């Protein structure tokens, strides 16, 4: 027996007002029992509104000001309460070269803009199916996390100059001089607005290269991304602890502070 869930709530995140309105109208005619709780225009609001309203379905545009739809979804997955089923996720995109390719193989669905009613109905059927499964108790946040990880990895732009192999030295401007900091001395990198904080055992520096550009230049075996804004040197990690809420924290060698691990990257830390 296939159980269909027809009553559901949704959140739309789309920065172009007419397109948000159009999607709302298309959804109203194709899925009359779906209640759109809110429409937001940027990634950060999508996260806060989703957490506040707890919708069953999310329609996220990929390109939005500030945070992209993918990043917003990843952050949301991280913040989402553990005891609640994660919403069904549908990405809406005009066409993103990498993304569409990636979506083809993913269970997370996507709709291309301009949204065609026939295609939208297929998506709705898929979403209803997923909601039905969820109602039977099969929460699949791990699957969603895995898919998001893949998508984020594939959409990431290749950085220039990666052909020369991993970065060995950081050139950090300190006052009027440039300090040479060996990458292997870095305990972790942390994104801070337009800059990146570089933390070694005894020092802290600031560089202008955004984390997104820096990451592909680092040796992926040694430097692990553990959070949207944190990249840590794997052999600088002393231990990993889990708090009451189930969140992972890293204790470092040479630095007192603890680093939070995003759910998206929690799979990196499993006992052998």
């Amino acid at each position, binding site marked *: 027996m296939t159980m269909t869930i027809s009553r559901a709530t949704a959140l739309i995140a789309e*920065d*172009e*007002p*007419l*397109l948000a*309105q*159009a999607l709302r*109208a298309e959804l109203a005619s194709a899925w009359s029992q779906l209640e759109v709780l809110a429409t937001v*225009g*940027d990634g*950060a*609001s999508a996260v806060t509104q989703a957490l506040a309203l707890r919708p069953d379905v999310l329609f996220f545009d990929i*390109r939005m*000001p*500030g945070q992209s739809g993918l990043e917003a979804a990843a952050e949301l997955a991280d913040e989402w309460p553990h005891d609640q089923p994660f919403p069904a996720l549908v990405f809406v995109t*005009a*066409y*993103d*070269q990498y993304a569409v390719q990636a979506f083809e193989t993913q269970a997370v669905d996507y709709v*291309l*803009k*301009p*949204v065609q009613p026939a295609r939208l109905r297929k998506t709705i059927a898929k979403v209803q199916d997923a909601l039905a499964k969820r109602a039977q108790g099969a929460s699949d946040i791990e699957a969603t996390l895995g898919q998001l990880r893949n998508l984020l990895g594939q959409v990431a732009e290749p950085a220039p100059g990666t052909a020369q192999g991993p970065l060995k030295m950081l050139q950090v401007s300190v006052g009027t001089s440039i300090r040479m900091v060996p990458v292997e001395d870095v305990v972790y990198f942390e994104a801070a607005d*337009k800059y990146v904080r570089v933390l070694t055992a005894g020092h802290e520096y600031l560089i*202008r290269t955004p984390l997104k550009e820096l990451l592909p230049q680092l040796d992926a075996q040694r430097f692990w991304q553990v959070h949207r804004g944190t990249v840590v040197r794997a052999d600088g990690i002393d231990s990993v602890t889990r708090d009451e809420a189930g969140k992972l924290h890293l204790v470092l060698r040479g630095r007192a502070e603890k680093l939070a691990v995003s759910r998206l990257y929690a799979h990196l830390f499993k006992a052998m």
Partner: protein
Amino acid sequence: MRIDWIGKVQHLLQVLAFCLVVASIQYAFQPDRPYAPTTVYSLFIGLYTWAVIDLGRHLLPSSRETGWPQGVAGAGIVVAGILVGWFMGNASADRLCSLYGLYSGPPPDPVADRRNSILITILAGVTASYYFYAQNRGAYLERKMAEAHQHANEARLKLLETQLEPHMLFNTLANLRALIGVDPPRAQGMLDHMIAYLRATLDASRAATHTLKAEFDRLRDYLELMTVRMGPRLAYELRLPPELANHPVPALLLQPLVENSIQHGLEPKVEGGRITVSARREGEQLVLEVTDTGAGPKGDAASAKGFGMRQVRERLDTLHGDGASFDFAAAPGGGARTLLRLPF
């Protein structure tokens, strides 16, 4: 310094042919004098004059436009060439003629002969120099025209790329599709702007320049499309004083700058912002300004190294050299500002 030696040989051959013509004309006026010595003198004077001017000019700082030394130096080298040509040419020819017995004794009127010879040398030297100067200049102007056309075509190609970029194209179409349902008259208006915007790349005249009015009209089409898409997140203002409407500018010069303001300034910013494009005259300069209140330049303000920016810079450089300037910096109230100065 790079010298085009094939060009030099061509010049030499042209000079020698010219000398033969001069000798023939001289012979035509004085048929009583033997042809051979006249030819030898003519060739030698020409040879020295050519060597001094055509090779010597590379030792002086020369103008980018013509390859000739500028100002007094340009005239000076011609005078020097003629002087050296006359003295050295005569001396060499004297020796050669007496060596081979071509010398037919002193002329009947040495003073008149000397005067004629000086006059002919000056006349021929100036004529030939002017000829080469004009030729260089013509080639330069032609090259410049070709470059201007090439840049205009590149600008069109760049625009075409933007138009066909999937995000731009499909989002615009999606908006149009939405408008057709809810507001048909506005959909028609949007479609009209889209048609004009698309046509800009298919401009039949393919001219390298168009009027400021045409330039601003293209910007308006683009910004209107973006206004429909971005809604209240985009406000724009185009300020073109009527007296500048017909002033020519390189076609689609400002388009990449406005696109940058949208893409890197307003799109990343949640609350959006405002774009102002203005043209004004300041003395002998035309000042074009694109300002936005967006996210502002990333990192180093001086690193305006995107393709669009580079192309605008190159175009200004080819057309006006040091006469034009390009300045991209953070705007005083946040956002970015690009200032172009062109000779009026």
